[in-house]
């Protein structure tokens, strides 16, 4: 009994989990069906059964440094087969959301994302910035609209580059700051997880890291793990399309700038040009992915209201948040589950 330790549940954290979509977390009775049905859970220390226990007991610090919550692809096989309706998929999403909220830098951005009331403001903010840039470039003189339409007269390239290139760098730095906070959390020793966390191979050599990185990139590009999903399989294809749509769009923008600055290929780029092809193809992929009918069909049966409304909310997020904030909707509670 001398090994007995007292753990104190963080009740606020449990409330946050419940608020963020994990309202059924306490229904879990630890049968471990979830960990067994999950197609991507590892053989050692599988998830999400242990995360359900930690969440139900309010073990915030443990969950914040639990890398497994980031392995989850939210395919919801666990939620479908959970005998108690505890919805492990939603609980993990709620945990991720809390982690994001906690580590985001600057912190007010994390809190703003957490608050649904702030959503209009978040959508409005970039619009205001763009409107301000347009105003700054044109000084309110829109007479060029009467001539042949040239987009760069509305917002000249130099303005875009001057604002968005440093903007992107700043975004990347802020993301890095958040990531560092998260990484520091991972290194804190704790009651539950041995430190350092044992790796399956028992070694942390360069070779293992490289192999792991190669495997991860391969999995990302093919969406292999997501396609192993049983319940939400159709979402894998939808996601793959949107994923390559955005990569294509980013590549198009970068190539267009390079083409303009290095080869003086001034826009509008002719329709027959490969960069134009790439851009149009990316747009088609993205739209096809977002409106993939399988996206809805693959959802498990919820109330009719949820089925009707939530995929649309998901699409709204995909449309608005991804391009504007470079924030993908995974950190938000999955709208597909209820």
């Amino acid at each position: 009994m001398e090994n007995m330790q007292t753990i104190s549940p963080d009740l606020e954290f449990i409330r946050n989990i419940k608020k963020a979509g994990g309202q059924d977390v306490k229904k879990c009775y630890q049968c471990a069906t979830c960990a067994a049905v999950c197609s991507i859970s590892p053989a050692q220390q599988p998830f999400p059964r242990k995360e359900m226990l930690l969440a139900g007991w309010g073990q915030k610090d443990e969950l914040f440094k639990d890398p497994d919550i980031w392995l989850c692809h939210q395919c919801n096989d666990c939620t479908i087969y959970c005998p108690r309706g505890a919805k492990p998929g939603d609980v993990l999403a709620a945990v991720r959301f809390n982690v994001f909220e906690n580590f985001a830098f600057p912190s007010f951005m994390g809190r703003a994302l957490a608050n649904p009331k702030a959503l209009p403001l978040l959508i409005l903010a970039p619009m205001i910035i763009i409107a301000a840039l347009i105003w700054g470039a044109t000084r309110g003189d829109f007479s060029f609209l009467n001539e042949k339409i040239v987009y760069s007269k509305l917002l000249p390239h130099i303005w875009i580059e001057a604002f968005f290139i440093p903007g992107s760098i700043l975004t990347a730095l802020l993301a890095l700051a958040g990531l560092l906070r998260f990484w520091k959390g991972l290194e804190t020793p704790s009651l539950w997880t041995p430190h350092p966390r044992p790796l399956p191979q028992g070694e942390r050599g360069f070779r293992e890291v490289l192999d792991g990185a190669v495997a991860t990139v391969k999995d990302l590009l093919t969406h292999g793990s997501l396609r192993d999903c049983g319940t939400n399989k159709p979402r894998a294809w939808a996601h793959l399309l949107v994923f390559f749509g955005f990569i294509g769009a980013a590549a198009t923008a970068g190539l267009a700038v390079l083409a303009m600055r290095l080869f003086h290929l001034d826009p509008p780029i002719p329709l027959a040009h490969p960069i134009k092809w790439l851009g149009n193809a990316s747009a088609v992929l993205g739209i096809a992915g977002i409106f993939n009918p399988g996206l809805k069909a693959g959802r498990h049966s919820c109330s009719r209201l949820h089925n009707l409304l939530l995929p649309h909310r998901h699409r709204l997020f995909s449309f608005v948040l991804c391009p504007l904030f470079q924030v993908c909707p995974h950190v938000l509670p999955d709208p597909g589950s209820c």
Partner: protein
Amino acid sequence: MAEIKINDSINSDVLVVGGGIAGMTAAIEIAETGRRAVLLEQKASLGGQVATFHQYFPKLCPPACGMEINLKRIRVNPLITVLTLSQVKKISGSPGAYEAEIVLNPRFVNEKCTACGDCEKACEIERNNDFNYGLDKTKAVYLPHLMAYPLRYVIDPKFAADERMKKCLAACKYGAIELDMKPRNIRVKADAVVWAAGWKPYDAAKLDQLGFGKYPNVITNVIMERFASLSGPTAGKITRPSDAKEIKKIGFVQCAGSRDDKHLAYCSTVCCTASMKQAAYIRERYPQAEIHIFYIDARSPGRLEDFYAKLQKDSKVFFHRGKVGKITENPQNKNPIVAAENTLTGERRALELDMAVLATGMVPNTLDEPPPLNTALDDFGFIAPGASQGIIGAGTAVRPMDVSASVQNATAAAAVRPMDVSASVQNATAAAMKALALVSRPRQPADNAGVSLLKSDKTPEAVAV
């Protein structure tokens, strides 16, 4: 036409519906206090689910022990009238004065049958043997099982009109076969009604991730009892359905559909001990076999804990704490592969087995066929406690229970919950007591001519055709 051995109207004290262990117990308890009981069974023989078992837990004795003595008590008691192949169509009245309309379905074999088996030998038609869950076949004229009561053949109604059955008719030297037998309606008057309709296993095919019905070597606990039974389809050899090889490594999947809000939300209380019992008899018959039991909580209530503790010490029995999430199949050898996390070690494994047994729970028959007179049922279809104003539940009609509880319960009331055999018996005894409380008039002699007629035939039983 053979003579009809019972009256068109029977005056009785208590009508007991369901001829399993609980109903039998209730009828016996009632009759042994000197009251008249009518015991009604839907199938061709008494015995219910218990008759299909290989062994009872925890003593590991065959159902013949217990059933035999009860059958004898029924056989010698003139106050019990047994109606097989019978169904209640309607019950009217109130406590103290019920009247039931009952349909007697044709057996196509009359009381002259001596169970010699000549008809069976002559019969060409085969049917799926539902007593063995379709694992083998019987002839269209068959004996329900070895302990059948009444010990008399029965003809599957699907084939009664078949021309080929004429051969059986010719083969019977006692004139026992009547292919033109028709259903008959009779009335039973009783002061009380005990409902011991029993249970059925949960339909394992609804558990899509566990592969029952898809993979041949995934079976259920009730099927295992038939495999193990010496009177079963394999004469007691526990073999894989895919290739008839005897098992070397077997797994039990506890809570298959139980404690699951999408299937059976409750715990049937018997499946854990039932699997342990099966593990114990497999160990005895196949000392080399390896047994894996996957559980959420090993529930062995009361003195059954000793049984669990004993099995835990067995070096060939492995308990894994964690429910099986899914079962897949090795396509080469048709081995089921069960996936589960052992929550005590934090390891997730996919274990390849020869055979997987799904421990499915008990569904009360009252769920699909509710008792008459608006008897109140609980959320799961069991007869609700306190609903005994009219119909009195006994055995697994009131809650899941084991055989012994069922017998006790039937003695008390005769049929209200799911239970193991012992719970079922206790409950049935209690039900019988409740039923007797409703019987107000003085004891009367057995009043029906049928009984005395049968006695004159030197068959000391009151059995309806």
